[in-house]
């Protein structure tokens, strides 16, 4: 990929942004330099707290006033230093020469304004077009982002659109004035993989057609491999490495970059010993959950969240349930943990049907199934110590406090934390540490089945690898059956023995991980696999 030597659209030189006093470090970003050429996609990649978003906001002139201030360096947009512009001048530049798209298409659009008007607003501010010309421009840009039936969609409200369509509207609004630079801050993180693939394709296509420079912020190396021409790797506010995508991914020079890339789970499943005929721990037969939307006067409306799901997990085996949002995978997990009551079918835990049990009858079965949730920040009571969280379950079942405390200490050691930290409160731990505590809490009950509902989705890639390792480790050590819910094919490939793919409440395909990855049978599974970003790229195989 040789690029003609042209003047860069964006040239960031020695950018330093100061954090308010009392933060954990002095600078949010320190001495950051990189450039974006016309028609080039530059990915800034890093974990949470690396300063990648602050960099994007500094370029856009959107640093929160009074809290973050750029203290040194220059941000040159076609030679103009943006850091020296007045707020009025910046307002004129934003939307016209630079524009930005955000992570959350739900909240970035005004819910009470028609989407066409939101795109037209940009034209209204920056141009003096007539009503009719404006509408024509809006329709034109909506067509170019491949929104179906722009004539109809121009007059709808955001809630009538899907997540992917909303993000297309955001991109249309960003591109309507043909900016020279587009800043995309994690634009696909909140989207499903199939939608993500379409949006990434759209961004690639648009930058080629319009020759826009794109500054793309992401944490996902799959996305980097998919779209980037050049990569800037950030850690703790500093650039640790930058270069052409091929070079950085294949021949990283920096240790941190190597660690990050190595932590990306591979899409090809490692060989796993075929599960012997171990006893079945969990079996669901025709498990269904139907929600009734009940209105006072309106007719009842049925929503079939889960339809006739048959799953089987043996002792010592990990079954992955893979699907996009709304596929019903979390509903399955919550039914099995009996946080909700299924409307049909049976859930056999070691032969006993728990699907219909009332609260009292369910209690003895509670300890057999434990669940680990997605959000480590909300799964521990902020007002209670970690020790109280871990000992709560065993003590509910009559264990003496001293015995429960000993078990908690052992478990803390097992999950790789200091046993003396039991007296601390959850806010004193990082996300990965909290997820370890949640695993310890689940293990304290000595369960037969561990349900892990997206346990690593909220974690950084390096921490993610450690937590996955821990889950696999406890599975082996305690010969646990694990039901692993995830949307991430890479994660599923690494930890699951078998995989069930869910789509619209039904299991469309099930088989051993190796078989499903090698030869997906169902059309949806194939679409899902084709959408995985960076699927053609084998991460972690470095050339010397």
């Amino acid at each position: 990929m040789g690029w003609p030597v042209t003047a860069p659209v964006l040239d960031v030189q020695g950018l330093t942004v100061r954090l308010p006093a009392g933060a954990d470090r002095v600078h949010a970003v320190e001495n950051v330099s990189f450039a974006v050429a016309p028609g080039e996609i530059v990915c800034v990649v890093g974990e949470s707290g690396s300063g990648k978003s602050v960099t994007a906001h500094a370029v856009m002139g959107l640093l929160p006033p009074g809290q973050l201030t750029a203290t040194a360096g220059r941000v040159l947009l076609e030679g103009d230093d943006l850091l020296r512009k007045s707020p009025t001048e910046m307002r004129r530049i934003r939307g016209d020469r630079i524009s930005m798209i955000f992570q959350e298409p739900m909240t970035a659009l005004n819910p009470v304004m028609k989407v066409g008007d939101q795109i037209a607003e940009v034209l209204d501010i920056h141009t003096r077009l007539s009503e009719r010309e404006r509408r024509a421009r809006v329709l034109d840009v909506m067509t170019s982002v491949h929104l179906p039936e722009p004539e109809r969609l121009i007059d709808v409200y955001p809630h009538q659109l899907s997540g992917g369509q909303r993000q297309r509207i955001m991109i249309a609004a960003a591109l309507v004035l043909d900016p020279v630079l587009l800043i995309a801050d994690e634009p696909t993180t909140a989207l499903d993989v199939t939608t993500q693939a379409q949006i990434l394709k759209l961004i690639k296509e648009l930058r080629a057609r319009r020759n826009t420079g794109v500054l793309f912020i992401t944490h996902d190396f799959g996305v980097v491999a998919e779209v980037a021409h050049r990569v800037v790797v950030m850690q703790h506010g500093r650039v640790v490495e930058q270069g052409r995508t091929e070079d950085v991914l294949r021949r990283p020079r920096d240790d941190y970059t190597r660690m990050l890339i190595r932590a990306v789970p591979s899409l090809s499943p490692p060989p796993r010993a075929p599960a012997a005929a171990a006893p079945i721990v969990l079996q669901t037969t025709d498990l269904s959950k139907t929600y009734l939307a009940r209105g006072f006067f309106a007719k009842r409306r049925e929503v079939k969240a889960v339809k006739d799901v048959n799953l089987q997990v043996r002792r010592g085996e990990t079954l992955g349930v893979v699907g996009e949002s709304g596929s019903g995978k979390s509903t399955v997990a919550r039914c099995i943990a009996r946080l909700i009551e299924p409307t049909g079918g049976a859930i056999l835990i070691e032969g006993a049907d728990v699907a219909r049990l009332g609260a009292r009858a369910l209690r003895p079965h509670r300890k057999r199934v434990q669940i680990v949730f997605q959000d480590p920040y909300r799964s521990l009571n902020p007002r209670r110590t970690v020790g109280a969280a871990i000992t709560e379950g065993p003590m509910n079942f009559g264990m003496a406090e001293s015995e429960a405390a000993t078990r908690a200490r052992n478990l803390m050691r097992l999950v790789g934390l200091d046993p003396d930290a039991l007296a601390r409160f959850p806010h004193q731990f990082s996300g990965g540490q909290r997820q370890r505590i949640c695993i310890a809490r689940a293990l304290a009950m000595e369960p037969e089945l561990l349900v892990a509902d997206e346990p690593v989705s909220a974690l950084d890639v390096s921490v993610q690898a450690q937590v996955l390792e821990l889950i696999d480790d406890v599975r082996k050590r305690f010969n646990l059956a694990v039901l692993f819910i995830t949307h991430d094919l890479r994660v599923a490939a690494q930890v699951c023995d078998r995989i069930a793919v869910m789509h619209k409440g039904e299991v469309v395909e099930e088989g051993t991980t190796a078989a499903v990855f090698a030869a997906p049978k169902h059309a949806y599974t194939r679409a899902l696999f084709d959408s995985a970003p960076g699927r053609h790229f084998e991460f972690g195989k470095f050339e010397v």
Partner: protein
Amino acid sequence: MSVEPALLAGEPAARPPKPGLPGRLARDGGIIFGALIILFMIVIGITAPWLGTKNPSEINPSFRNRVPGIEQTIRNDDGTARTFTYRMGTDSLGRDIYSRVIYGARVSLIIGITVAVISIAIGLFIGLIAGYLRWVDAVVMRLMDGLMAIPAILLAIALVSLFRAGVMSVIVAIIVPEVPRVVRLVRSIVLSVREEPYVEAAICAGTPTHLLLFRHVLPNTIPALIVQGTFICANAILLEAILSFLGIGIPPETPTWGNIMAEGRGLFRIYPHNIFFPGICLALTVLAVNVLGDGLRDKLDPKLARRV
């Protein structure tokens, strides 16, 4: 393959510890202002007999409707004479308004605080149950909707007329319309907290329902309830004054700010001090309680502050 604990020690803690809550509260001007005035009123109420007052119910037919500052020679119980200054004048029955205002603080504060505490206790109990048990919810909330549909003052008037007039019946009459508001607040918090993963994890751990509510759900309602409590307190003080002003609350011989104003209403044009002094005290107290509540809300319950 287990993970090295040493590696984890390197992971930064998520947040540095915040300054203590008392420290943060003491830095807020509104909280200090409100708390000082309320404290002042409480001290006045408690020490009323020693603040140069006389019996607030004592009628003096020969010395009616006098302006503030007037002096009179009165006889003590032992027969000696002394000069008594009516700092705020006398009312149409010759009672000392200064004494009545000072003693009136007792009634206002007792009613405000009692109503706040009791209605929060009742509302918390009903709200927790309504929020957690779905089948109770439908019945209880419709009942609460019904109660809220009746104007608070009308309901209070109806309730007072059912019992003998007195402080207790006024307290009950104010609590009844306040409880539904607390129930709604608690219920809404319970409904959102019960979806929190840590509550669901406790359910999976087999925690019995009463412990679940007490350990994991109830503590989340406390900040909002402290804030709500101050607003209820202010509202109760006002409602008591309104009831007394309308002549249906506390019997006229007991001095309350509302009673004093009701007494002075007829001659307001000629002797405005009858209404002026208790009015100032009432306004200042209610303002202080509200300012304190606003300050506490900003500190304790940022979510609520954004919603209001």
